[in-house]
């Protein structure tokens, strides 16, 4: 292969789903020994592009060339054979098998001729050096189920190495890694590049891109909106490409000062961190952002407040009155509502109509003698549809047919049709496009102004800084610090998120915009 011939070449890739243009005219080139940073907001089309590269979905138009050969209809096995390996943000491991079996899955060394028995010794011998190279602290016999998320990520990377991939695509590889693990991963990327592998590095943590990328391309709304050469890469440049506007424009100040009472937590202990206690006060009329790394106990806190997970100890007071919450029904009765992280699994019943989703949590209010009054249901849900601008032909359509943003509005409509006193938002805009985000932020502000206490869990730094009135940061199960608005900065949040114990690392400093 000529040295300047690209390993991978995409030309004019487009992808349409019914009603949605997910990708439009995307060109992309990756050379051997190059690390290409791919940035873009959620919903910009990165995942669709990667699915096309993996042969999972066919492009609607455009050409894919790998190693100079054109693939008119790339399949999963062709992508693998052509040397493309993925390290996904959602891990694709069999956690009931051991590490060696996962790493060599589909390429197991065999013995016994026609009997096709697994050669476990050979498998171990092949996997052990790979793990060593990655600096893993576990062996090939370890069961994946017993590994941490970071360790599993290493298994995924070992899988790519074992396949001797020429193109490795890392999709949010560090989202759940500790700082030292992140540093090790980045040095590994440098090593891969030196070995002539092409790497596509997708992340929201722009600091990592600055550290390792040779070139950056940016997707927005399915289009390639720009590219940056090595010397042009900077936070500001990347953010400008990604969102194309000022960061702080999101913030609307509250109409008045936060009130007294609200939700007070004292010494609350959750199942995620049984020995750590959380103290937190969410005041009515404010939006309290809750930041922290994945796994720092934020979601567990919200689930405990809502009664999904049991509280192991401590007090919950609402407007001064002690609450005992052991199941969601009690939280709902008290006016504490949760907009969960996983909309489709926990927020909505996708097969029920908008009407039935909106009234689900408060159905007895629409019933007489236990029988549901459908007319009243429709009136109530229609009111929510109009006030929330839910884009649907009618309230009779199933919630599953709506787009992410509209689904989230249905979840909101469910709670707004009742009388919220505390709203817990867990990643409220994940997978939602920019326009709908703005609407949801405006709604949160309106709710707060009407006296609701709002807790917003978010891993999106832009969102946390742009929407919150105060930010509480969690680290390993406890609140490691509270920031007032004038003290907001990515560095401040991040320092608290990592527990203030380690020096900020060059590779992770200001990892978020």
């Amino acid at each position, binding site marked *: 292969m000529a040295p300047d011939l690209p390993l991978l070449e995409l030309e004019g890739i487009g992808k349409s789903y019914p009603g949605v243009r997910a990708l439009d005219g995307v060109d992309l080139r990756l050379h051997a020994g190059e690390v290409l940073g791919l940035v873009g907001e959620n919903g910009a089309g990165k995942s669709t592009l990667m699915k096309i590269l993996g042969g999972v979905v066919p492009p609607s138009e455009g050409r894919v060339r790998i190693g100079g050969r054109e693939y008119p209809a790339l399949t999963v096995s062709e992508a693998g054979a052509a040397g493309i390996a993925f390290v996904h943000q959602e891990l694709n491991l069999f956690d009931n098998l051991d590490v060696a079996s996962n790493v060599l899955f589909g390429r197991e060394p065999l013995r016994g001729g026609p009997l096709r028995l697994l050669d476990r010794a050979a498998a171990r011998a092949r996997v052990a050096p790979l793990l060593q190279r990655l600096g893993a602290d576990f062996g090939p016999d370890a069961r994946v189920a017993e590994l941490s998320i970071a360790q599993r990520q290493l298994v995924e990377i070992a899988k790519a190495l074992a396949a001797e991939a020429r193109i490795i695509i890392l999709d949010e590889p560090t989202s759940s890694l500790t700082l030292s693990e992140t540093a090790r991963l980045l040095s590994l990327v440098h090593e891969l590049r030196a070995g002539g592998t092409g790497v596509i590095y997708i992340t929201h943590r722009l600091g990592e891109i600055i550290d390792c990328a040779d070139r950056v391309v940016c997707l927005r709304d399915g289009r390639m909106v720009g590219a940056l050469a090595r010397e042009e890469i900077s936070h500001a440049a990347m953010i400008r490409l990604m969102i194309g506007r000022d960061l702080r424009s999101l913030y609307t100040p509250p109409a008045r000062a936060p009130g007294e009472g609200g939700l007070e937590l004292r010494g609350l202990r959750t199942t995620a961190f049984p020995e750590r206690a959380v103290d937190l006060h969410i005041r009515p009329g404010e939006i309290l952002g809750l930041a922290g790394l994945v796994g720092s106990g934020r979601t567990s806190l919200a689930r405990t407040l809502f009664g999904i997970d049991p509280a192991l100890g401590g007090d919950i007071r609402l407007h001064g009155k002690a609450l005992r919450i052991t199941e969601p029904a009690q939280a*709902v009765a008290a006016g504490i509502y*949760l907009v969960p992280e996983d909309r489709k699994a*926990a927020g909505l*019943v996708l097969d029920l109509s908008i009407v039935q989703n909106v009234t689900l949590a408060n*159905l007895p209010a629409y019933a007489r003698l236990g029988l549901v009054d459908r007319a009243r249901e429709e009136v109530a849900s229609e009111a929510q549809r109009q006030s929330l601008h839910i884009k649907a032909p009618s309230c009779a359509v199933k919630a599953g047919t709506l787009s992410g943003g509209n689904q989230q509005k249905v979840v909101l409509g469910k709670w707004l049709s009742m009388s919220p006193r505390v709203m817990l938002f867990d990643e409220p805009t994940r997978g939602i496009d920019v326009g709908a985000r703005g609407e949801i932020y405006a709604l949160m502000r309106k709710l707060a102004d009407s006296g609701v206490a709002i807790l917003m869990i978010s891993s999106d730094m832009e969102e946390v800084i742009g929407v919150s009135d105060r930010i509480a940061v969690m680290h390993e199960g406890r609140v490691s610090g509270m920031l007032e608005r004038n003290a907001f900065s990515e560095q401040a949040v991040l320092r608290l998120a990592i527990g203030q114990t380690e020096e900020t690392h060059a590779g992770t400093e200001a990892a978020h915009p």
Partner: protein
Amino acid sequence: MSKKELGLGLLLIVIGGITAALNPLFLSGTNLLNMANLIGLFGVFSIGQGIIIITGGIDLSVGSMFALLGVILVDLLVNFELPWPLAVLVILAAGVALGLLHGLLVTRLRLQPFVVTLCGLLIYRGIARYYTQDGTMGFGYAAGDLDTLTWLASGRSFGVPNPFIILLVVAACMAVLLHRSVFGRYLYAVGRNEEAARHSGIRTNAVIAGAYLIGGGLAGLSTVLLVFYTSSVSPSSFGNFYELYAIAAAVLGGCSLRGGEGSILGIVLGTVLLQILQNLVNILGIPSSLNFAVMGSVILLGVIADQQLSRRKQVGALSRSPAPVASPAE
């Protein structure tokens, strides 16, 4: 009436029409009334099964429950000479209690419904056989006056078999419960997405246990009807396989074993179809040995047809849908 039920009704008419064309006696009053009687017998517990299936569960134990509750009923009436209203009440309560037990095991201990009720299938049958020392219990030597109960459970009113009337009443009540009440809505929500229902403040455990409780109660009611249909209970064979008839009726009627789908009308139509299939074997003089094969083939064809039609419908809806479909998740 949904498309599914319409399709099933159509299938009924086609099969009925073919049978009637081959042998007009199919539509004779006697035959129709006989069938109505059997539809009543099998419909009542199929509705219970359907409600459990809608929560995403299953009840494999009903057949064995019939044997156990059946021998107890005969024993209470014949040997203990209990007044019949009391005996019937005991059986209904016992059915409810067993249903509740299943429900609690499924919800509190998080055991799989299949496993819980499979164990029930084995246990109840075993207890029934031990209780009777493997003897058949019947009304052959009954002393007391059972005429009223016999009439209620197997007689006719205005020429219509009482089990069929009982089914109509049960179906009407359950249809209101399932399609109009808060509890019914909860059943569908829990069956479709238990997690989301729980996140909406619904006491999902209570809802699921409630479904098993209803299923148990209806199984108790069916026991009384079935015992008076056969007049005797042989503990080793009474009710054998009946859980499968119920599951088949529910599935034919549009219940998905994944939960959250199905209607009372559908389940009743499913029962009707199953009974027609058994009837036509006799009416057309098909060898009895082919009975199960005929039933299985028609169910399979029905399910395949339904699958194909709903897939076509889905594709059609997608291409016609003007609203943006959820974009692939990032």
